[in-house]
């Protein structure tokens, strides 16, 4: 048998990894790979309209299915366009393998046409990256790349393949000499003494709180089940980061809601007052902790994380446990045995007092537009009308994202796709495309803002091409709302460049791409509009015109402690000192 080319070897390797979809865009330096894709029915290529869309679609697919997303882009601008999505996947720990074309090996370093130092550019926003110099290395490298992307703390891996390596046959039969098991072996199981110590701390806690994060989702659906089981044994009140929503059911009586900057009053005060905090697969992000020296001052802290570098990074903890969330939860459940735990009645009564503040109760009417739909109301209705179909929700970034996190309920993992760490506007629609491909029968909705959606608006064409019935629900307040909100809080309402001028007619835009467009302007039409959106068997944009002045509360202003939350009705306009202004 004739020897296979690098491109053919790559295809075989991808098939061996059970890759269903490749999200990509062709170009000069990947033509040999695209020729291999031609007519090969084993892998379906999804042609996006911009490489950023390919990376976010792969992220959405990965987040919704738990399988790695695969991206294929050309050299130079193809690769640099994908970098935002790669950096996004790196911060949110999304498993992704990105194959980039490169100029032929002989031209590397000569400033050749469409040459960029992809390995250099992506070095610090990937979990690992490779430049392949011989087709002989391809098979072992692809195998290792998938292993690295999907195990341990997941993340993006880039494989840069020069065009001549795609065409050539292996120079000799050799495996990657570094591909041995020795060099990458994440610690999954925690030492028994640490488990025993943790269980003792939790069992003796008077005021425990579980603070869970995206690591529980990444660990697989079993981790969510085990979290619920362990919570059931301990009855600890439970909160979650933005990335962890869905791991614990929002309908559970011990659910505190999301914590952090736009988290609930009860979640943040429970964190502040707890005596034992159990952080499971979260990373004490600045959105969560607020002012560090005032963060949960009296608690003993247990931190379970598969990444050792997350432990003690910003918040010193009393017990750091390196391990996989599901495995460690299983160990803790076994170690808990038939303990009774403390009576948490008093603690829960205090929490009930905080709950009674009803921190998510927003004003019925906007001051500036009393007739307008309140955006919070729109999300609430969207949730109530769609929840029976267990929808997958993606978001863009901004106020709408926080409102979606606050007012949409999640009771299962892998249903919530959002750019948490990098905060990438333009994430939501391509992510919805990826999620819909992974779950063809699911109701997939991108909750968007009118500003964010324009950042990857070209992907309307991708959804049309592949007949993907995704829904884009735009909360249109004609502002980059979160920017405007910060300008009110910090810069005395000087709205520097935060007004969304020259907006397109979103209904006409939808129709131009063969989508259905629906505009909702009156609250009386809200339910009917949402139902029409759901009933349409195809992609829909809903342009939901909402109150222009609505702000997102509760809010812990930058530089403030959990106890210094702003609630609806608080006077918020003004300025801040420079220390607070310097924080993001």
């Amino acid at each position: 048998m004739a020897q296979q080319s690098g491109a053919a070897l790559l295809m075989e390797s991808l098939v061996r990894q059970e890759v269903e979809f490749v999200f990509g865009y062709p170009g000069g330096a990947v033509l040999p790979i695209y020729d291999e894709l031609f007519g090969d029915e084993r892998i379906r290529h999804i042609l996006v309209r911009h490489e950023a869309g390919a990376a976010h679609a792969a992220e959405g697919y990965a987040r919704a299915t738990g399988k790695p997303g695969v991206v294929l882009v050309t050299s130079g601008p193809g690769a640099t366009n994908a970098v935002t999505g790669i950096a996004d996947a790196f911060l949110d720990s999304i498993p992704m393998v990105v194959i980039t074309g490169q100029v032929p090996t002989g031209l590397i370093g000569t400033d050749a046409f469409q040459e960029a130092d992809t390995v250099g550019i992506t070095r610090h926003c990937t979990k690992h990256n490779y430049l392949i110099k011989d087709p002989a290395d391809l098979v072992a490298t692809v195998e290792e790349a998938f292993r690295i992307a999907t195990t341990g703390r997941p993340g993006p891996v880039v494989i840069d393949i020069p065009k001549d390596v795609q065409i050539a046959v292996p120079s000799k039969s050799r495996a990657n000499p570094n591909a041995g098991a020795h060099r990458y072996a994440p610690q999954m199981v925690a030492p028994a003494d640490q488990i025993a110590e943790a269980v003792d701390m939790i069992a003796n806690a008077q005021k425990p709180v579980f603070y869970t994060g995206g690591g529980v989702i990444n660990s697989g659906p079993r981790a969510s089940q085990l979290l619920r089981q362990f919570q059931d044994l301990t009855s600890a009140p439970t909160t979650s980061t933005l990335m962890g929503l869905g791991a614990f059911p929002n309908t559970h009586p011990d659910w505190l809601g999301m914590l952090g900057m736009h988290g609930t009053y009860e979640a943040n005060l429970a964190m502040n007052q707890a005596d034992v905090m159990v952080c499971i697969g979260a990373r004490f992000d600045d959105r969560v902790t607020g002012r560090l020296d005032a963060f949960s001052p009296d608690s003993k802290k247990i931190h379970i994380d598969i990444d050792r570098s997350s432990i003690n990074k910003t918040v010193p903890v009393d017990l750091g446990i390196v391990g996989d969330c599901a495995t460690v939860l299983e160990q803790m459940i076994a170690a808990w045995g038939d303990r009774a735990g403390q009576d948490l009645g008093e603690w829960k009564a205090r929490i009930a007092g905080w709950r009674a503040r009803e921190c998510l109760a927003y004003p019925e009417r906007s001051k500036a537009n009393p007739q307008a739909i309140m955006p919070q109301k729109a999300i609430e209705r969207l949730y109530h009308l769609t929840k029976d179909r267990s929808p997958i929700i993606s978001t863009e970034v901004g106020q709408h994202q926080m409102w979606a996190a606050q007012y949409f309920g999640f009771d299962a993992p892998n249903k919530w796709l959002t750019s948490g760490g990098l905060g990438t506007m333009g994430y939501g629609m391509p992510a919805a495309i990826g999620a819909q491909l992974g779950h063809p029968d699911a109701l997939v909705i991108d909750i968007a803002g009118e500003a964010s959606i324009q950042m990857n608006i070209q992907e309307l064409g991708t959804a049309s091409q592949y007949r993907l019935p995704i829904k884009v629900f735009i909360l249109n307040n004609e502002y980059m709302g979160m920017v405007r909100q910060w300008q009110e809080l910090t810069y005395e309402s000087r709205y520097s460049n935060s007004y969304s001028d020259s907006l397109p007619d979103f209904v006409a835009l939808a129709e131009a791409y063969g989508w259905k467009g629906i505009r909702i302007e009156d609250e009386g039409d809200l339910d009917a509009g949402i139902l029409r959106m759901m009933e349409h068997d195809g992609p829909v944009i809903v342009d939901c015109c909402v109150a222009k002045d609505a702000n997102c509360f509760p809010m812990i202003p930058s530089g403030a402690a959990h106890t210094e939350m702003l609630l609806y009705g608080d006077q918020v306009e003004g300025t801040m000192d420079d220390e607070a202004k310097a924080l993001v």
Partner: protein
Amino acid sequence: MKIQSAETERHVLAVTVDNEPGILAKITGLFTARGYNIDSLTVADISTDHAISRITIVTNGPPQVIDQIEAQLERLVPVHKVTDLTAAGPHVERELALIKVAGTGDKRVEALRVAEIYRANVVDTTTSSFVFELTGTPEKVNSFITLMRELGLVSVGRSGVVGMMRGSGGA
């Protein structure tokens, strides 16, 4: 508003890595990207098949940052092992320096006399210059250079620190 800074301490890290393209850029880039300091860095391959390199990094930072540096280094796929020699206990630190001194008469004689005291070797000489080779701790090298400054110092090349644990085990 002022930029804040914290108390730092010096640590010597020994890092064994796969000897593959880009690994040095990964490590130095990690230090730049996360705002860590490098006082010195040495690297050379140490295995017969050239597959493994050993890097010695001298860094400084607050204790929490030093801990992060180790954890972040361990996160890199080609990194096998990170040993904080400063934290691990008694260890040897050595540095090699080449020091060129030019002069005649008393200064030249004095330079040679000091070099003998420091057990520096003369590796090159002309009638008006020496190149000394000196091995020792960074402090020893520093003090030798200080003395040579008065005796016609022309140029200095230093290898940076290489470190190893004392005793039979460890890194």
